[in-house]
C-alpha cells in the first residue's frame, strides 16, 4: 500500500461526492467514505499508513459520536413542534398586547375628554403619561419580531440538520414515541396553557361543558 495515497483518496472521494451532491453532502455519506477507505487498508503498512489509519479511525469515531449526540437532541421535533409553537405564542403575545393597549387607550381618551370638559389639568397630565406608556406595545412588537426572525433562522439550520441525518432521525423519533407511556403524554398535554386564542375555549363554552355534567 502506498502510505501517502490514502489522504489523497479520501479528498478525491469527498470531491466526487460534492460534484454529485453539491454542498449538501450528508455526514452519513462522509462517514461512509471514511469507513470504506479504512476497509481498504490491509496487508503490510508503513508508519505513515498507521498514522493515517489512526487519523481516519479517529475521524470516523468523532463523526459517529457527533451523529449520536445530534440525534439525541431530536432536531426533527424541534423543527416540527417546538419552533412553530414558539412562533405562534409570540404572535399571540403581540395580538393580546395590541388589544389590551387599544382598550387602555379607549379608556384614557374618555378620561381625557371628561378632564377637559371639567377643566382638570391634573387629569390631562396623567392621561398624557398613559399615552406615553402605551407606546411599549410598539417596542415590544418590534422586539418580538426580531426574536421570531431568529427562530426562523434556527428553523432553517435545523432543517438542514434533519435533511443530513434523514432516516436516523425517524428511527430516534419512533423509539422515543414508544418509550413514553400514554399516561405521561396525557398529563403533559394538560400543562400547555395559555392556549392560543384560536384553540382556547371561551368561558361560556366551559360553563356549558361543566353544566353538561349536572
Amino acid at each position, binding site marked *: 500500500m502506498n502510505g501517502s495515497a490514502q489522504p489523497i483518496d479520501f479528498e478525491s472521494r469527498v470531491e466526487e461526492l460534492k460534484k454529485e451532491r453539491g454542498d449538501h453532502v450528508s455526514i452519513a455519506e462522509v462517514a461512509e467514505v471514511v469507513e470504506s477507505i479504512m476497509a481498504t487498508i490491509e496487508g503490510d503498512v508503513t508508519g505513515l499508513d498507521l498514522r493515517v489509519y489512526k487519523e481516519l479511525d479517529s475521524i470516523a469515531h468523532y463523526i459517529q459520536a457527533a451523529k449520536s449526540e445530534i440525534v439525541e437532541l431530536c432536531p426533527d421535533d424541534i423543527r416540527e413542534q417546538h419552533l412553530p409553537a414558539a412562533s405562534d405564542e409570540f404572535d399571540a403575545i403581540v395580538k393580546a398586547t*395590541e388589544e389590551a*393597549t*387599544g382598550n387602555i*387607550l379607549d379608556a*384614557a*381618551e374618555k378620561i*381625557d375628554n371628561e378632564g377637559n370638559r371639567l377643566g382638570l389639568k391634573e387629569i*390631562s397630565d396623567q392621561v*398624557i403619561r398613559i*399615552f*406615553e406608556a*402605551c*407606546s*411599549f*406595545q*410598539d*417596542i415590544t*412588537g*418590534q422586539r418580538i419580531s426580531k426574536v421570531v426572525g431568529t427562530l426562523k433562522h434556527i428553523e432553517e439550520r435545523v432543517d438542514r440538520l434533519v435533511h443530513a441525518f434523514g432516516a436516523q432521525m425517524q428511527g430516534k423519533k419512533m423509539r422515543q414515541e414508544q418509550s413514553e407511556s400514554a399516561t405521561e403524554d396525557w398529563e403533559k398535554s394538560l400543562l400547555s396553557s395559555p392556549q392560543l386564542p384560536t384553540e382556547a375555549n371561551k368561558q361560556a363554552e366551559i360553563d356549558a361543558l361543566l353544566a353538561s355534567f349536572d
Partner: protein
Amino acid sequence: MAVDKSMPILIVDDYKTMLRIIRNLLGQLELNNVEEATDGASALEKMRNTDFGLVISDWNMEPMTGLQLLREVRGDDKLKNTPFIMITAESKTENVIAAKEAGVSNYIVKPFNAETLRSKLVSVLGDF
C-alpha cells in the same frame, strides 16, 4: 412667528396603536388637524393631494421604509421643503446619520414622551 395650529399634519406608522398615541399627544398640544397613513406609498399619495405642514414618520415599515419615504419626499420638487420628523426605535448612530444625510428635520427615538415630542416640534416649526 407662531405656528399655525390648524396646519395639516401627516403621521405615518404601520402600528395603528402608535398612530393613535401620536395623534393623542399632538392633540394635547392643540394640533388636531392630523391625517394618518399606515405605509410609505399611501403617505406619498396623501402628500401629493394635501399640502402638509409637517410629516411625522416611523422608520421601520414595509415595503417602503421611513428612510425611503424621506428620500422620495426630498427628491420631489413639490414636497421637498416639508418638515419631516422621524420617530423610530432605531437609535444607532449610523441610522441617525443616514436620516440626516437624507434630509430629516429631526429625529425622535422610541419610547418617547410628550415633552420630547413638543421640544422637537418647537425645534422644527418654532414656538407655539
